[in-house]
């Protein structure tokens, strides 16, 4: 049975991969690019050197953090698509904190900054949680809208109150904050690359989220409220409070992701930091089965996809939009395959079919022990 299971899963994955590759190849051929070169670049490019690998991990860090938050909210019955806005609020809060205490030593400043980032994100997520729990506003609506509001608020601050005074002086006027003091920078863990200590933080937090959700009474409450609100209420869980808690946590993780990005990579608040991590984070969380043990590899995989696909622009001459096509196709193929892999009914049918055709093919002599 286990062999059949393996065969089945392999078959599903191969079929999905093939389908995805074919669709991508069709579009690539249509625009006159080489599918083979493109695919080779995506999946080998990131592993060619130290840069590639570390860049993948650099992408994976915020994806893990956002994904963890998303996992908490989805597990608690909230479809949070507002991570994008929550990241921005985290960036603002953490930057403000770091700039407010420029003289503080690292051991104090970094935790303060991350705390501020998490609080900023939590505040933004909490609004959606509050609206849902107390006023019955659907979270999909509110988070979509809050993303836009956050984006405007972000430019407002970066262009106005938080702008680097140097930008005003020179007249460049770029919306960006002052550069953070060195004490607010996360250390690089591989020299000459951008891989920073945020990775360790993300991994530690992944473990914490696992413990939180599956090992604590808190997590139990959140999951119960998310899985079946009626039963949770019956069992004495305050479901509304749990929704708000979940959104606070989810927002907190997104905000922390923003803070870590600033502290580890950009060292100041600028535009375009979140670069779609809010949405990719959802994909990562769901790929990872809403479980930290799945989210970490899913984030790394997605990092490969991001970095590798970007490389195709330079190595295979593929236009930037094509990258979106490839990512889209890969996502569609993987979610489809994933459902089949976990579908016991389909596996059962496959096993039956396999056994039937399998037994028919086995010659009698073998079965009765005749030596070939």
């Amino acid at each position, binding site marked *: 049975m286990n062999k059949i299971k393996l065969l089945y899963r392999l078959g599903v994955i191969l079929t999905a991969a093939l389908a995805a590759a074919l669709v991508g190849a069709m579009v690539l051929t249509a625009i006159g690019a080489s599918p083979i070169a493109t695919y080779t670049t995506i999946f080998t490019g990131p592993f060619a050197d130290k840069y590639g690998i570390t860049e993948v991990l650099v992408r994976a860090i915020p994806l893990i953090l956002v994904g963890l938050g998303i996992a908490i909210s989805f597990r608690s019955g909230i479809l949070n698509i507002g991570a994008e806005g929550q990241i921005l609020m985290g960036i603002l809060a953490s930057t403000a904190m770091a700039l407010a205490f420029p003289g503080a030593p690292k051991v104090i400043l970094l935790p303060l900054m991350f705390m501020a980032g998490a609080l900023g994100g939590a505040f933004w997520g909490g609004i959606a949680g509050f609206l849902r729990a107390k006023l019955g506003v659907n979270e999909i609506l509110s988070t979509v809208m809050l993303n836009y509001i956050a984006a405007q608020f972000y430019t407002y601050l970066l262009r106005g109150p938080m702008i680097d005074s140097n930008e005003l002086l020179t007249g460049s006027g770029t919306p960006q904050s002052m550069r953070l003091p060195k004490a607010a920078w996360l250390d690089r863990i591989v020299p000459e690359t951008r891989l920073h200590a945020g990775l360790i933080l993300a991994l530690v937090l992944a473990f914490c989220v696992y413990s939180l959700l599956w*090992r*604590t009474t808190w997590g139990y409450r959140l999951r119960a409220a998310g899985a*079946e609100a*009626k039963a949770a209420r*019956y*069992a*004495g869980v305050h479901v509304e409070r749990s929704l708000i808690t979940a959104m606070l946590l989810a927002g907190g993780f997104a905000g922390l992701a923003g803070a870590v990005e600033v502290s580890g990579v950009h060292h100041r608040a600028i535009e375009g930091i979140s670069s779609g991590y809010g949405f990719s984070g959802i994909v990562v969380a769901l790929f990872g089965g809403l479980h930290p043990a799945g989210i970490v590899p899913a984030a790394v995989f997605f990092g490969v996809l991001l970095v590798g696909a970007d490389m195709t622009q330079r190595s295979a001459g593929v236009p930037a939009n094509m990258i979106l096509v490839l990512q889209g196709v890969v996502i569609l193929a993987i979610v489809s395959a994933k459902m089949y892999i976990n579908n016991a009914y389909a*596996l059962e049918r496959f096993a039956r079919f396999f056994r039937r055709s399998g037994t028919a093919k086995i010659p009698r002599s073998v079965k009765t022990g005749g030596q070939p």
Partner: protein
Amino acid sequence: MQAASEPIQELKLVGICKRFPGILACDNVSLEVKRGEVLALVGENGAGKSTLMNILAGLYQPDSGTISLNGEAVHFKTPNAAFAHGIGMVHQNFMLVPNLTVVENVALGSKNLHRFMNLDLNGARRRIKEISEHHELPVNPDAYIWQLSVGEQQRVELVKTLCFGAQLLILDEPTSALTPQETDDLLARLKRMTAELSIIFISHKLNEVKALSDRVTILRHGAVVFNGTTADHTPAELAALMTGHEVTLPRNESHDQSTEVILSVKALRARGDRGNLALDGLDLELRAGEVLGLAGVSGNGQRELADVLAGLRPVESGTIHFQGKNLTNHSPRRMIEAGLGYIPEDRHHEGIVPSFSVQDNLVLKDYASPKFSFSCFLKLGEIERNAESLRECFDIRCSSTSVATGSLSGGNIQKVILAREIARCPKALVAVYPTRGVDMGAQEFIHTQLLARRKEGVGVLLISEELEEIMNLSDRIAVIYKGRILKVLPAAIATREQLGLLMAGVVNE
């Protein structure tokens, strides 16, 4: 689908097998129904009855085996194909779309009413009228399903299936949620229908089987273990054949009165889901060490009363005192902490979190108690041990306590809830329809457990529509009618007739 072209003279299932991942639900089942006959299909929870019938109704595909109608092999790929041959099924769970009206539900399945860009609702209304008059099944065609009581929904189901032109009617536990009167009515109507139809009837209540059916087939673990004429066997014999041992439902014989009032409800008023005043000045006292049966036709405030007691529904006025403390309008958590146990009506969505494991569901109310947690950390080992011991104690049948509870059979889910509520050592226990849809064996077990708690001094409020169950177990019986308690009688002197009249709202001096 109007009436099928050819009347069904004989239906035969031969060697039907159906396997679900990890379980053989139907194991080489054969059975046969003739025109005008009622075949009863009985068996424990999870025996495979519904699966078999779903195969007949075209919903599932058998792995092997054949179905033949009037001697001709047929193959039902979809429910449509089954309808076309005159097979209609009333499913165990209502198959009515709640936010549609009755007419719309009927029109949904009646393809001949589907015009281009137009839905012939009047045609559906006519058809409903015709059928409901013919079979004396009154329904209000323009009511939304969510507005209807369970009994009314059952009637709608029946009318709907008949509207689709069924000649062979499959009824999967149609009486499990009906009041005694409704059940009697239904059985009488079905009896009359046999002039025109054949019926396959599934029930856990063997007296109904006895009253209605001509022949009976018993399934156990997916296989047929008995096939015979109903008239030749008593319900007790059938029960023994079904479970493999004698089944005797326990009775509460002692009737000694304790006096300590543990739960007292005064002049309680609360609103139902539709905004109506479902509880309208209700007074009730539950004493320690008694079973108080609450009889009544469903929809008279039972559900709301249970909700209010559990803290799940706000009280408009009146008080609830539990062990002398005023707990009116307290949160569910407070009620739980005060020592109130509650077996809810909706076991699938309220009693358990279906996706949680059996272990987790067994601590649904106590995960944060010092026994199962240390500060805020869960003691997973303790939770597992607890589950193992309860599983043994309460005979919960599951492959392991880490499987999702939603995958268990109804009877076993009920046992999980019972185990949890009882293991918490409550001071009072509210049990709402605790044996609905549960097989004889489990029923016996649940009754025994409730009586055992009573012996230990727990006050049990048993809400049920089964007079049988109430009269068997109660010390006193209260009758609820339109949100008030009409009368409380000692069980020893209560009679079926008297209760029946009270439940209909008739108070004789």
